[in-house]
């Protein structure tokens, strides 16, 4: 069992995500990867579906993992993890290995989780494999140059949802809520939570709870992307905080079928405080911003937080 980390000072010193990647300056997913690897420790096998945390991490046949790591297709992180898990179960039971059962972690982007990878993810969870599936959400298909994924927010510019006279808001569709999809309907689910790289202790402890769960664990991690969202590379952590403080992102765990917030701002700021720093929203008109505010309020309501709709004045 991995123990709770009580504070930053008590966090493990060892790094398992080390130099050897070439992610963008300020890359959110890379920052959370380091925290995840630190929390998981050395008895860990990572599976990397195609995406930024594959391509930008291994570009020259190298990589930053001090633990075993294998590439999977963007389609099948959940399925490959299932196979690794089944293999260790069988080999240990049949005395074909003296290995201990390892942490098996899929590190999938929002596309590899909620879109092309959803079938394999759902099947793995239906079957009850002892794996941790992490969705690092940078809210686009970033590796291929910023295209819309089902988790790209309403109103966000991407190369597949550019704003123009015909489509003034850019992205018209509201995003999927993959966490809620996973929370209901998979009887073998053992642990589910959301996290953000801007709240590192909370994130690392949720990783450990997921790994301790002895069954399928799902962890959504919000990971801002300076390149895709158009904000300065040194503002990643700040943007992540604003996402939570405006209610766009909620930090919670599913405990006995109920959502329990693990962090709640004393007062929610209007979402304008979040989107004003991001170029991908710069084309939005007041009516679009209002819709986005309603979206945030609705997501908060779903986890038991009633907010008065703040008046949008700009």
């Amino acid at each position: 069992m991995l123990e709770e980390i009580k504070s930053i000072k008590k966090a493990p010193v060892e790094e398992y995500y080390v130099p050897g990647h070439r992610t963008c300056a300020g890359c959110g997913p890379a920052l959370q990867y380091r925290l995840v690897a630190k929390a998981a420790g050395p008895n860990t096998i990572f599976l990397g579906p195609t995406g930024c945390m594959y391509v930008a991490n291994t570009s020259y046949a190298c990589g930053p993992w001090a633990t075993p790591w294998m590439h999977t297709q963007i389609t099948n992180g959940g399925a490959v993890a299932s196979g690794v898990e089944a293999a260790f179960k069988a080999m240990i039971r049949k005395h074909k290995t003296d290995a201990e059962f390892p942490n098996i972690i899929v590190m999938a982007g929002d596309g590899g989780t909620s879109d092309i990878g959803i079938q394999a993810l759902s099947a793995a969870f239906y079957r009850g494999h002892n794996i941790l599936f992490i969705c690092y959400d940078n809210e686009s298909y970033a590796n291929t140059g910023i295209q819309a994924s089902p988790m790209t927010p309403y109103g966000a510019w991407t190369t597949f949802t550019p704003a123009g006279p015909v489509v003034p808001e850019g992205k018209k569709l509201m995003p999927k809520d993959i966490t809620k999809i996973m929370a209901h309907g998979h009887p073998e689910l053992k642990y589910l939570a959301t996290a953000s790289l801007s709240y590192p202790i909370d994130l690392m402890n949720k990783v450990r709870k997921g790994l301790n769960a002895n069954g399928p664990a799902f962890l959504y991690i919000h990971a801002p992307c300076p390149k895709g969202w158009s904000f300065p590379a040194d503002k990643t952590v700040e943007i992540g905080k604003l996402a939570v403080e405006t209610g766009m992102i909620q930090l919670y765990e599913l405990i006995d079928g109920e959502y329990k917030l693990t962090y709640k701002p004393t007062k929610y700021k209007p979402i304008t405080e979040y989107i004003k720093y991001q170029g991908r929203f710069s084309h939005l008109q007041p009516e679009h911003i209002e819709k986005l505010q309603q979206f945030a309020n609705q997501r908060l309501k779903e986890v038991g937080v009633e907010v008065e709709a703040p008046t949008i004045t700009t």
Partner: protein
Amino acid sequence: MGVKKRMSGCVATANAIRLADVDVICSYPIRPYTGIMSELARMVADGELDAEFVLGEGEHGQLSVVYGAAAAGARAFTGSSGVGVMYAMELYSPISGERLPLQMCIADRTLDPPGDFGSEQTDAMCCRDQGWIQGWASTPQEALDISLMYYRIGEDPRVLLPQYACQDGYFVSHILGEVDVPTQAEVKAFLPPYKNHHVLDVKNPMIIGAQIEPQMGPGLQYQRYLAVEGSRKVIEEVHEEFADIFGRKYDPWIEEYMTEGAETVIFIQGGHAETGKTVVRRLRNLGEKVGLVRLRTIRPFPTQQVRECLSRFKAVGVIDNSVSFGIACSAGILLTEVRAAIYDMGDKVKTVGFVAGLGGEMITHDEFYKVFKKLKEVVKTGRVDKESYWLPFEL
């Protein structure tokens, strides 16, 4: 010597998988291979086989699961038919390129459209470029035997390649044949435990499948090419070892049937060869100089062996039980590969292609007679007036 039983190709394959003490199996139902998986599920439930029986979500998922399992160091098995084989296409290159010697049994089936449960070799033939060991069993006995041999070949440290153990849907997968089921002791002597150079092991961390720059590409592909070419020697060794332990001797590449003194032969792959053999026997009884050559291993293609064998005949009727629309010479894949293999012999050996048995139909005795009649005509005139025939429409 094991126990002789009557069983279908599906059940024979399942017995091989049981004897191979496979660790991870991933299932998904599609006709006609499903019987392999239901027999394996029964074996696991009855305690005859200790394996993780993973209920896959689809064929793409199946190949993904066994890919992960093999990378972790487990002996893994899966299978499919028809469009299922196509759905998993994305995985075939990663599996062979990462040198994971898992096995897939394909009980072949025609592709959509529309739905047709009948046998046709098209599904597995579409995979022939992916760097796997591949061949067709023509009887349930052979289905069991190639499954065992393919694990041995594929897992050999000089090879480390996955294998497609193919059999004709229905004709082999479902029709009963007599099968000598080996003992566990015999298989243990033949098939050592699976040990790969590169596995997911926290004691020896590795990065498997890192992204590369284009300039690194050719070298990786060349390595895989060398592995496939290098498997030829191992395939021959393993067939010798198999004969020694199990008492059944197969030519690794081609089976010749009544070819002594033949002037015309049929070149064919899989279960339809059994029908062809009956026709050859009857024609021989009538004094006709005919024979049959059955291709046992299509990948790697036995170029030299095919060349040497076919050079002894005057005309060869190549039977393609698959479609490849628009292919050179307008018949099928086997005709084109045979022609490539014997190209250097110039015009000495005439070849004609016959696309037959599509959709799950039998290749009938009548069709085989017509093929031999056409070949006899080719020998007489010294000309191939038409190089491809789609049976039964064009002869």
